């Protein structure tokens, strides 16, 4: 007799484990391969991110080459090469051809790799669309040979399939070279392109040098402007406030600690003996209890205790900001502008994870005044190219009232004007809106911090603009005064049939300048030179006065320093004048000077717009 058919058992036979690789094969779009241009970009991105991470860990200044060639139609050949530490032979196959393999996914620290599905996904994509394996060359030391592999991913087993395993000569001392063929689309131009991505990467990683060779042969190099490798970010244990019930239960199950006290102290950051004690008391739990014996209810009580017991905030030094100086340098090299302001804010916390925000604002120069401002978004030093509208950083930009700071903001969205904004969120765990990790999720703490950073740089911009305006106004006034006043003096003299009175003191008075009047009087011994200096400004002036004489000065009063030149003497006085005060310098020389052709004295240490009657050198505005 036949066994009665139990439907569930029949169905069960049909079920089998689906391999991760199979899953990815069928769900590419989640992982950044949803469109042809994007797929190409994602492959470049994975390789470049890996190279950057590796170089930084090894303390090497990254030199990265990206070359993209079009084979035909939609097929492209991508080559990336770096001067990184290389990969140990044994690790190469699994690194490139096994999905979700790698150290970065588990570590709680700020890293680029956290945002990528890994190079293996790119390899898988390449083999699926071109049928060709990925070629890897890697060398870890000058003394060692370079290893060459051709790999594909076995989609059923999620294990690497080695098609070629060889040893080759490579003239690099160390590094990695990846070549893949894949289907994609290369976008020329500046938006959402490989070019944009690499440019943005080089801005926030100013210690890198990236060379891009486009399909048409055009070569672009993004130079490095810093020799400083950013400090490596440190790994930390999770913080209690970022733990939820599911995570806690899993941790209790997985730990190899035998007592809950030890589990708490060593499994979390910021829980010391006392805190652990307090937590156990609060949760009404015996510190000697075994984690494995925990019930769901007890875990819940533990979680409640986390919230109620005072626990110090997570350590802030696990993050590695780009820093004001490098943000500025990065922006400067890509955008020739009139003004840059940067802000690197202190570390804050969201969902138990430390995070910090940095902002940069570049204004003026060649940036178009008619368009909406460009926003460069970064998460853990990785440029975010897609989904700008969905990102928390963009939302924060929209929340700021830019009109208050001098920009148009029609419709209240993204402001308009000749500005490029840079926003960087760095965290041990950046919250994204979706698996594709294109946009940062709207966490209030993050939005708030970004807003504050933006307001800071916006305020700097506002100050700069008003300084500029004042400067323009002053310049305009000066032009008018400098032209009109001499005409008044001349006309007055003409009306009265007298010589036009010297108007320079009045000009100096109006402009709040330092007045320098030199007069030369011939006497029986030669010439007597008198220099009268008056300070019409509201502030004291400290400066040096130079006056060149053809021969050695005698009877110098007050005493100065005379330096012999090739033809003449540079007579120097160090002076300081309070507002409204004046000083007279005199000296005599043997030769007879023509009063009409003597040279102007030189004032050193004051900007030329603030001096009347002398030329200037070495001044600042």
């Amino acid at each position: 007799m036949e066994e009665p058919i139990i439907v569930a058992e029949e169905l069960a036979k049909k079920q089998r484990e689906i391999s991760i690789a199979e899953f990815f094969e069928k769900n590419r779009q989640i992982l950044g391969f949803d469109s042809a241009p994007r797929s190409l970009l994602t492959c470049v991105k994975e390789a470049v991110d890996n190279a950057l991470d590796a170089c930084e860990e090894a303390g090497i200044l990254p030199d990265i080459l990206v070359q993209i060639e079009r084979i035909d139609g939609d097929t492209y050949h991508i080559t990336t090469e770096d001067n990184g530490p290389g990969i140990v032979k044994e690790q190469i196959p699994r690194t490139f051809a096994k999905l979700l393999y790698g150290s970065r996914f588990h570590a709680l620290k700020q890293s680029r790799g956290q945002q990528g599905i890994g190079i293996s996904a790119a390899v898988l994509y390449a083999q699926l669309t071109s049928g060709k394996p990925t070629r890897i060359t890697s060398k870890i030391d000058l003394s060692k040979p370079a290893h060459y592999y051709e790999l594909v991913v076995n989609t059923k087993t999620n294990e690497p399939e080695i098609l070629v395993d060889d040893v080759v000569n490579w003239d690099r001392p160390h590094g990695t070279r990846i070549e893949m063929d894949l289907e994609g689309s290369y976008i020329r131009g500046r938006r959402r392109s490989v070019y944009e991505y690499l440019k943005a990467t080089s801005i926030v990683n100013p210690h890198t040098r990236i060379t891009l060779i486009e399909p048409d042969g055009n070569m672009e190099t993004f130079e490095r402007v810093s020799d400083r490798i950013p400090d490596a970010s440190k790994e930390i244990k999770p913080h209690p406030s970022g733990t939820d019930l599911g995570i806690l239960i899993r941790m209790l199950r997985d730990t190899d600690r035998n007592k809950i006290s030890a589990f708490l102290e060593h499994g979390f950051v910021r829980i010391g003996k006392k805190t652990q004690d307090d937590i156990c008391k609060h949760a009404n739990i015996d510190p000697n209890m075994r984690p494995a014996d925990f019930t769901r209810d007890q875990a819940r009580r533990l979680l409640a205790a986390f919230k109620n017991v005072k626990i110090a905030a997570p350590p802030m030094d696990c993050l590695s900001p780009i820093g004001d100086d490098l943000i500025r340098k990065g922006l400067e090299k890509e955008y020739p502008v009139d003004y840059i302001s940067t802000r690197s804010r202190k570390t804050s916390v969201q969902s138990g994870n430390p995070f910090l925000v940095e902002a940069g604002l570049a204004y003026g120069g060649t940036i178009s005044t008619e368009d909406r401002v460009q926003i460069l978004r970064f998460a853990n030093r990785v440029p975010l190219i897609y989904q700008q509208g969905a990102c928390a950083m963009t939302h924060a930009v929209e929340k700021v009232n830019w009109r208050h700071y001098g920009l148009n903001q029609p419709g209240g969205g993204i402001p308009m004007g000749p500005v490029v904004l840079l926003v960087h969120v760095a965290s041990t765990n950046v919250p994204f809106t979706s698996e594709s990790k294109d946009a940062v999720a709207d966490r209030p703490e993050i939005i708030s911090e970004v807003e504050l950073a933006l307001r800071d740089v916006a305020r700097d911009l506002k100050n700069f603009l008003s300084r500029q305006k004042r400067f323009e106004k002053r310049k305009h006034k000066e032009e008018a005064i400098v032209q009109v006043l001499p005409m008044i003096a001349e006309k007055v003299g003409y009306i009265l049939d007298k010589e036009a009175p010297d108007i320079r003191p009045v000009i100096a008075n109006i402009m709040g300048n330092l007045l320098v009047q030199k007069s030369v009087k011939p006497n029986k011994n030669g010439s007597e030179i008198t220099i009268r200096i008056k300070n019409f400004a509201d502030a004291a002036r400290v400066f040096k006065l130079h006056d060149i004489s053809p021969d050695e000065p005698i009877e110098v009063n007050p005493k100065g320093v005379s330096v012999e030149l090739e033809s003449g003497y540079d007579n120097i006085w160090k002076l300081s004048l309070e507002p409204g005060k004046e000083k007279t310098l005199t000296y005599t020389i043997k030769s007879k000077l023509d009063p009409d052709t003597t040279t102007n004295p030189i004032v050193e240490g004051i900007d030329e717009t603030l001096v009347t009657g002398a030329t200037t050198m070495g001044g600042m505005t």
Partner: protein
Amino acid sequence: MNKEGTQQTDEITTNRLLEIAQQFYDQINTETIPYITLPTRTKANIEYDEEAEVWVYSDRESVRSAKTVRGAYQLLKTNYVIDFLKYQLGEKRSSTLRELYYISENWNLAKFSEQNESDSLIEDLEIISKLQRENFHIRPEEDGASIMGPIKVREKTRRGTKTIHCQDDVGEGGYQVPNNVDNIEFLEHDAKMIIAIETGGMRDRLIENGFDEEYDSIIVHLKGQPARSTRRLIKRMNEELNLPVVVFTDGDPWSYRIYASVAYGSIKSAHLSKYMATPNAEFIGIRPSDIVNYDLPTDKLTDQDVKALKSELTDPRFGSDFWKEEINLQLKIKKKSEQQSLAKYGLDYVTKTYLPERLSEMGVV
């Protein structure tokens, strides 16, 4: 005034102008930023001079200083004008306000942007030098008034002295008042009053109806806002001949200002009020109460009219109860009337009824 006298005043005038330039010269030489101070020429700065019974400038002063860009340009232009006037006086020539404005085209940065600017500057110089623009040999553009009435005058002209009787020796247009009224000598007259009229139409009506003969009145056609010469002449006739003056205009705020400049002095040239205003000139109408009482044909007040009326409420010259009542009434009825609207009641109504009634009320006839 004889030739010598003219020379004398020319010399005085030139010296006064040179004094201004000298002031700037001294300022520059003492490292002072050049400036001049003038009375502020707004209605906020006029006050009633009890003795002269006219409105003059009060104590508020405006400083024009080369410290500001605007001030610097003004002082530049001031000196250019002084230079020009010095030349003009030296050459015994004269020019109009408008010509002065055009001459400045050659002055580079000192060029005037509009005629108001150069007119104002000349007024400034009048105030500072305590002279009149006639002394600078500057003439205005506008015509003086014409008068018609039983009075004989002798006028000194460029072409000799002329004796004129202002009814017998003149045509329909009457006697044209010259720019320099001080060149007129009053010889003899049979007049009992002076009536100053705003519009040409009304003036012609009075003459056609023989009002000057019937009431022995000198009819002065103001031609709108009266020229300085007109105001000066009215004042002289009032003072020297002891004749009462009445003013007859349209019933709107601009016309009241015409009356004010005859009787009170103008805001623009308050420095000359004592010389040109006739404090005992009286206002006949058209009053807002006339519009109501005589049920005159009207027009609606425009926004500018309303604004002007409201401004007059804060003009100290219109501070009397009489004016406050009339202006508020007009703001209430929101209407204005022309003097010629009296024709509603016939062409003779103005000379047979309205004026006699009003003049009798006022005690003039």
